[in-house]
């Protein structure tokens, strides 16, 4: 069939002898099976970290922001660093599901579901920080433009902080419906396979009664495409607006026009690194190596390499412009970053973000699973330090030398951050056991063009017609295909 043609030069995206039914079985297996010991161990550690974070948040709110290491000079530190770090990680999901959909990249289908899940879970972590930083989080709704009893005092639409509220809530909610819409057919698959009544009930509820009519699929594909078209500028706008939080101020080191593209590239960079961290483990634990292949990891490594290089160019451009501008405050801010008391943080950032991704030029390294995992962790650390460097080193020595000081985090700062990492992994681990972690309906659409088995049949010059049948689900599969050949 011409409709399933793919150039022989393309490597298969689904390995092994997979039929459509195999895809259903493999994706349903982690949900239908029992959690093993290592899942429980990791889950317990994550849960403990999460509870520790909850304790720190309760302490912060009941005692006050004074429990953090902030002082009158460095009045933003780990809180906003963690916020930007988590929002940045949240960028890869939409990039994979939306931008790669627009570019018709079939390899996105093995990883888009988990990348989107990661997006949603990490944006939730990000949202925690501004809310607890308010000090009185029960008044968080004051950021919304709602009529109130203060003489209708409205929120300030000139403020980048308010733009952030709109950008992040739009991003979170749109990502959520994008993810859920894609999940409906896969929940329906689990529902129709379920044997236990309770499981059937839950997945019926989650699948919203998905039926799979031809008209539903037609709308589904159009909705996915339009959502991708909307999410693409949206994802760019989110980190652009996050960078405005800094760029619209007059603090040396923050007041630069390069921030929006530089932040977006950094976000994609850190997001892909986190996708690699999670999926390298998940493909092993959930036996999905045939769907999340070394090729997927390699392609993500290439994205990491490119965005890491863009980030590197941005760092160097910043230094150049600071010198070229002739503004001595700017010049000092950058000199201080590279050689001042926080130089260690700057050079961690430089080596993790600019130097380490360059290893990915070597095919041997970027196709090595262990090395990819190692680099993904290094990049995550580097991107955390990037935000720390931008925020703390710009603030700690600003226009007034008599106020110059250092920042040191308290156990509450550290505990809250560790708590969000725990919360993130709690959510992701629960997801990995209860959700279809691969967009199986979409994978089935590319199986005949990109599946290893079908590629082989096609290259042998045989017809693909009738090869979708599986012996286990249809006893006529064999003679049916024979009849068709005659």
């Amino acid at each position, binding site marked *: 069939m011409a*409709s399933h043609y793919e150039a022989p030069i393309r490597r298969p995206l689904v390995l092994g002898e997979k*039929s459509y039914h195999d895809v259903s079985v493999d994706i349903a297996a982690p949900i239908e099976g029992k959690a093993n010991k290592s899942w429980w161990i990791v889950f317990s550690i994550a849960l403990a970290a999460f509870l520790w974070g909850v304790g720190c948040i309760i302490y912060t709110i009941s005692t006050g922001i004074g429990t953090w290491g902030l002082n009158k000079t460095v009045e933003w530190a780990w809180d906003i660093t963690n916020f930007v770090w988590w929002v940045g990680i949240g960028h890869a999901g939409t990039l994979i599901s939306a931008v790669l959909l627009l570019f018709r990249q079939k390899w996105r289908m093995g990883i888009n579901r988990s990348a989107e899940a990661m997006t949603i879970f990490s944006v939730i972590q990000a949202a925690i920080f501004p809310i607890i930083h308010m000090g009185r989080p029960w008044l968080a709704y004051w950021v919304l433009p709602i009529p109130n009893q203060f003489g209708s005092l409205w929120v*300030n639409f000139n403020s980048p902080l308010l733009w952030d509220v709109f950008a992040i809530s739009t991003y979170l909610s749109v990502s959520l419906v994008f993810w859920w819409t894609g999940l409906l057919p896969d929940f329906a698959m689990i529902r129709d*396979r379920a044997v236990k009544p309770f499981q059937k009930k839950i997945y019926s509820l989650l699948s919203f009664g998905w039926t*799979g*009519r031809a008209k539903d*699929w*037609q709308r589904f594909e159009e*909705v996915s495409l339009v959502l991708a078209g909307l999410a693409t500028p949206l994802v760019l706008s989110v980190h652009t607006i996050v960078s405005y939080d800094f760029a619209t101020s007059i603090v040396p080191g923050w007041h630069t026009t390069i921030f929006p593209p530089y932040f977006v590239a950094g976000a994609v960079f850190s997001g892909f690194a986190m996708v690699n961290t999670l999926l390298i483990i998940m493909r092993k634990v959930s036996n999905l190596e045939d769907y999340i292949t070394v090729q997927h990891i390699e392609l993500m490594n290439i994205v990491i390499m490119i965005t890491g290089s863009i980030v590197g160019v941005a760092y160097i451009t910043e230094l150049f412009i600071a010198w070229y501008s002739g503004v001595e405050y700017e010049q000092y801010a950058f000199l201080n970053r590279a050689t001042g008391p926080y130089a260690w943080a700057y050079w961690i950032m430089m080596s993790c973000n600019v130097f380490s991704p360059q290893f990915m030029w070597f095919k041997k390294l970027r196709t090595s699973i262990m090395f990819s995992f190692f680099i993904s962790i290094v990049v995550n650390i580097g991107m955390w330090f990037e935000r720390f460097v931008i925020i703390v080193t710009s603030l700690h020595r600003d226009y007034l030398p008599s106020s110059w000081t250092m920042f040191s985090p308290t156990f509450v700062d550290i505990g809250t951050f560790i708590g969000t990492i725990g919360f993130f992994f709690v959510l992701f681990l629960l997801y990995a056991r209860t959700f279809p972690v691969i967009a199986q309906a979409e994978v089935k659409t590319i199986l005949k063009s990109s599946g290893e088995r079908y590629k082989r049949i096609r290259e042998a010059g045989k017809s693909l017609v009738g090869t979708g049948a599986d012996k286990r689900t249809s006893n006529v599969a064999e003679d049916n295909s024979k009849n068709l050949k005659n």
Partner: protein
Amino acid sequence: METSKVIHAIYTDDDVLMAAVKKVKAERHHIEEIYTPFPVHGLDKAMGLAPTRIAITSFIYGCIGLIVSIWMMNYMMIQDWPQNIGGKPSFSYIENMPAFVPIMFELTVFFAAHLMVITFYLRSRMWPFKKAENPDPRTTDDHFLMELAVHGNEKELENLLKETGAVEINIVEKEAH
């Protein structure tokens, strides 16, 4: 309850299904419905389904979102409670507009995305606690089901469908709704 007879033909391959749809259409039979586990490329055209207009609704919702955002910020920032914020012009929407562009964009996307998805869910009759209507649970795994209305031509249809490679043919009474 009024019932009508329909014929359910089950296929196990998307290429066989596509060929069957073309053949059934060529014989001038009306296909009531096809249930598939994944979107089969070109099936809607082969069946003769009209193109979906859901993208148009999204465009309209986006326009509404843009208008709402402009109206809201004009009312709040210019008319109801103008304030001098960093010397920005608080008396004219158009002069203060650059600061409002991010929110205009965000609300456009917000409206376009969410209202389109809600429209999709309602038009395709999907919501929490909705019961699924696929007649055979295998159609979310690897089976494809074609539904044709029977008007006293059971034998003719059965033969035709068998010829097209259907692996199972069932005649069922369907409740009208």
